[in-house]
């Protein structure tokens, strides 16, 4: 092989290695950027999920009111009424979520309330998520017929 040919081959090799390394660096950089965007999106979704703990008990569908003015509690009669809705709109809204309210004080009773609130303490709003993200927080449950307030919790689960 002549010296000139050898030099050309050497140059090709150098260029080839350079380009391969260059491409690799770019691909890694690209993936890293994509991942960081996805991470940012995941964090945003997580933030939104955590916000649900504030949003759900404050929805007019569940929140207490007196002469049209909202009060900071969850109306048990509304929870029971909601169970009877079986509404497509809410089925779609909570399609990937499990949401329930549960009395924890003065009595804790995990029995599901269906048509009344006697001998039970759990009001299931939606039951569509087996596992995944979970958040819970305290709420005040109001029993209008007895004019009683009890302490409860709201639990929200969402499919990942």
């Amino acid at each position, binding site marked *: 092989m002549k010296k000139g040919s050898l030099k050309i081959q050497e140059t090709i090799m150098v260029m080839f290695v350079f380009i391969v390394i260059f491409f690799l660096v770019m691909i890694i950089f690209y993936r890293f950027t994509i991942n960081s965007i996805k991470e940012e999106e995941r964090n945003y979704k997580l933030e939104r999920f955590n916000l649900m703990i504030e949003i759900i008990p404050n929805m007019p569908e569940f929140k207490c009111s007196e*002469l049209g003015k909202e009060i900071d509690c969850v109306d048990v009669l509304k929870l029971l009424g909601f169970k009877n809705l079986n509404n497509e709109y809410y089925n779609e809204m909570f399609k990937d979520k499990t949401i329930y309210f549960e009395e924890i004080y003065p009595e804790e009773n995990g029995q599901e309330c269906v048509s009344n609130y006697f001998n039970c303490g759990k009001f299931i709003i939606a039951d569509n998520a087996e596992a995944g993200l979970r958040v819970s927080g305290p709420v005040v449950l109001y029993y209008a017929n007895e004019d009683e307030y009890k302490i409860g919790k709201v639990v929200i689960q969402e499919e990942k």
Partner: protein
Amino acid sequence: MKKAQAEVFNWIFVIVIGAVVFLFFVGFAYKYKDLSEQRNDVRLLRSVDVMLEGLKSDNLYNEATGVKFKFNIEDGDLVIGDFYRSFNDKIIFGSEIDGNELKAWIKEFKMPYKITNFIFLSDDKTKYFFIGNEGETIKDLLPNENGIDRFDIEAISFVNEAIFENNEKARFIFFTNANGDELREALSKGEVVEIVNNKITYFDQNGDIIETFESFNDLLKIGAVFSNYRNFRYNYDAIKKQIKNMATLYKERTLLMKCNGAFISPTYLDDLYSLNFNTLNDLERQNQALRNQNCKTIY
């Protein structure tokens, strides 16, 4: 290989490799631009979301600045690039947002109990021209600080009085019948909606009516001020659906209640479910009567 051949080969090699590297750089630049946009979209969505979630009490107004706000409101969702955000607990009125300032105002929608929250969105590049006297009534309902309107609203008598910059969008709200030359001139300058006698009418570019909606609440009129046809159409259906949902819910609740041993009639809630708003006052009276009898109220 001769020296001359090697030289030619060298040049071809350099050009080919140069072209490959150049194309790669160009491709990468495009991809990177796309990625940067995606990142900005997520960040923008996040900041808009934070702002809207901050609007918790009735009648709050908020402004955000510092970034370029560019997004759409489509079928109740906030859409930024490939990302979107749905809102379950509020209904968003607005059109395309494109400006350096985002303006948001929240109002509780009650019929007569709370149905949902309405959020009205606008930017600093949209001017609202109110034509006709009833516009004053609607204008008075909108937020202002020390008499200065938070949204850019101007009352005019004729379309040719409307003055706005090239980079601004105009929305003409006719509170009188919009027809003839006035309508055509308004359509050539911006979007048009007519609000007359509790009817909200949208027009296409030719001046033909797209659809007329019955307005059963002043907040719907305000919604029409801010929304394009597509968004208003979607929201109108969503509101009616939500009124029906809440009427059913309150009816179910009422059926579980008793006042002095007697059941409470949910007739007026049935009317609401049928979107008959003529008995709203009766429902309010019934609610007040329950309170006077020391019973729990329906709502």
